[in-house]
């Protein structure tokens, strides 16, 4: 489903962020990508929605080589992925409900159906009845849950999260981790990066460990 084949990423100045990474993630897996800051986790995750392209090697999503995807096709790839980033990246001049609706507006869903799905997504992350509020009035954990609701509202088959609990305290981080587990149990492939080794340990995920751009461990091997 997600295949990295000898992927190298070089930045100007000959800085190598990823040095020949290869792995394969099957449908329905829960995978935790771990490593210290600068290990290459974010760079690796950015290659899946083609925010970054590899300097060498191939990235395949559902059999499609996305590393050479033409620019016009990228939005359609991203519509099938759920993305949660370190910062919630919410639009603070819009309500929680409007933020969650945004992916459906982009894909041109009929308004009534979009509203129904946004309500369901908010309920799924435990924010039912909070749609009318503005994001600034929510806690950090709640804002991240809104971001997760926005990521799942399109019912993606792959959910990618880059350090989603980085700015949260332990209690909120545990809630977010359990949310990801519940999506995975519903059949969604989840790939989440974290520098917190024990956060997902109770769910026994597959672990990919990165260090200085090299894959140093894969619990599936």
């Amino acid at each position, binding site marked *: 489903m997600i295949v990295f084949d000898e992927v190298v990423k070089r930045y100007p100045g000959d800085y190598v962020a990823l040095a020949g990474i290869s792995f394969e993630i099957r449908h329905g897996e829960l995978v935790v990508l771990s490593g210290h800051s600068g290990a290459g986790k974010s760079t690796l995750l950015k290659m899946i929605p083609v925010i970054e392209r590899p300097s060498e090697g191939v990235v395949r999503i559902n059999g499609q080589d996305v590393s050479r995807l033409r620019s*016009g096709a990228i*939005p359609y790839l*991203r*519509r099938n992925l759920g993305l949660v980033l370190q910062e919630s*990246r919410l*639009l603070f001049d819009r309500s929680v409900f409007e933020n969650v609706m945004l992916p459906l507006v*982009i894909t*041109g869903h009929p308004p009534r159906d979009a509203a129904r799905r946004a309500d369901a997504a908010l309920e799924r992350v435990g924010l039912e009845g909070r749609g009318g509020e503005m994001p600034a009035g929510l806690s950090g954990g709640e804002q991240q849950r809104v971001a997760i609701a926005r990521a799942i509202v399109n019912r993606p088959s792959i959910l990618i999260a880059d350090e989603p609990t980085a700015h949260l305290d332990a209690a909120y981080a545990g809630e977010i981790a359990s949310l990801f587990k519940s999506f995975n149990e519903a059949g969604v492939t989840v790939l989440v990066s974290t520098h917190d080794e024990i956060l997902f340990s109770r769910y026994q995920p597959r672990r990919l460990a990165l260090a200085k751009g090299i894959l140093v461990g894969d619990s599936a091997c």
Partner: protein
Amino acid sequence: MLNWMQLHARAAFQALRGLARQPIGTVLSALVVGIALSLPAAGYLLLDNVATLARGVSGTPEISIFMRQDAGEGQLRAVERNLAADALVASFRHVSREEALRHLEQSGLGDVLGGLTDNPLPDAFIVVPRGDDPERYAQLHARFGDWDGVDHVQLDSAWVDRLHALLGLGKSAVILLAGLLGFALVVITFNTIRLQIMTQRQEIDVSRLLGATDRFIRRPFYWFGSLQGLLGGMVALGTVWLSVRALSGPVEGLAAAYGAVFQLAGPGVEESLVILGFAAFLGWFGSAISVRRHLSERLR
């Protein structure tokens, strides 16, 4: 199709919300655009009114054929036959030397002619050409001059031609002014959209991550530019209408003082639509250039 319309409706709504969110800026932009556009619009209207006035004053142009003093009866009859057979001549009238003298005496110049023993006035023909093509008049003017016994041919509408030439020059000046001020409108919209893109940077980035196409991101900016132009067009129309209302009384008074009836005309439905459409188009054009210049970087 329905989806396409929904996306446009959403973009238009988003643009309207953007305009409403900054009412002072919106009003100021509309005023600047409106005043800039009202100048060429008023100029065009002024020329149109002058042209209407000129048409009313000149009526149908006439060509006067003056015969030589020694022209005989045979030559007069030949000219009559030629005029009757000419397809470009709508009608003509023979003014004999005696009739011309009588007219002159009736006009109060009889004393001037009193000392003369002979009638100095020639036979003449007043010709009304068919149609209103100035080239036709010139053709007839040249043809009549070649006929036997003809001394002089005078085109009575020469001053109208000069006025039309002046109006043509005025129209060119208005077009130039419209071009220059239209360019100003494009520049204003260009800058407004640049600021919009800067303030909506986060929304653009988030939308991209969520799968928005370039078209989806650009569309609200196109609508914003068009709506801003349209608002400016409305201000321009309003300004022109108010000016016409303010000036129509004095202009009618002036015309009445010369014994004429003249009413200053404001822009009609067609002209109003052209002004609004032109303003919206310029707004769209300014936004299109700005989006191309400032958004392409972000969308790459």
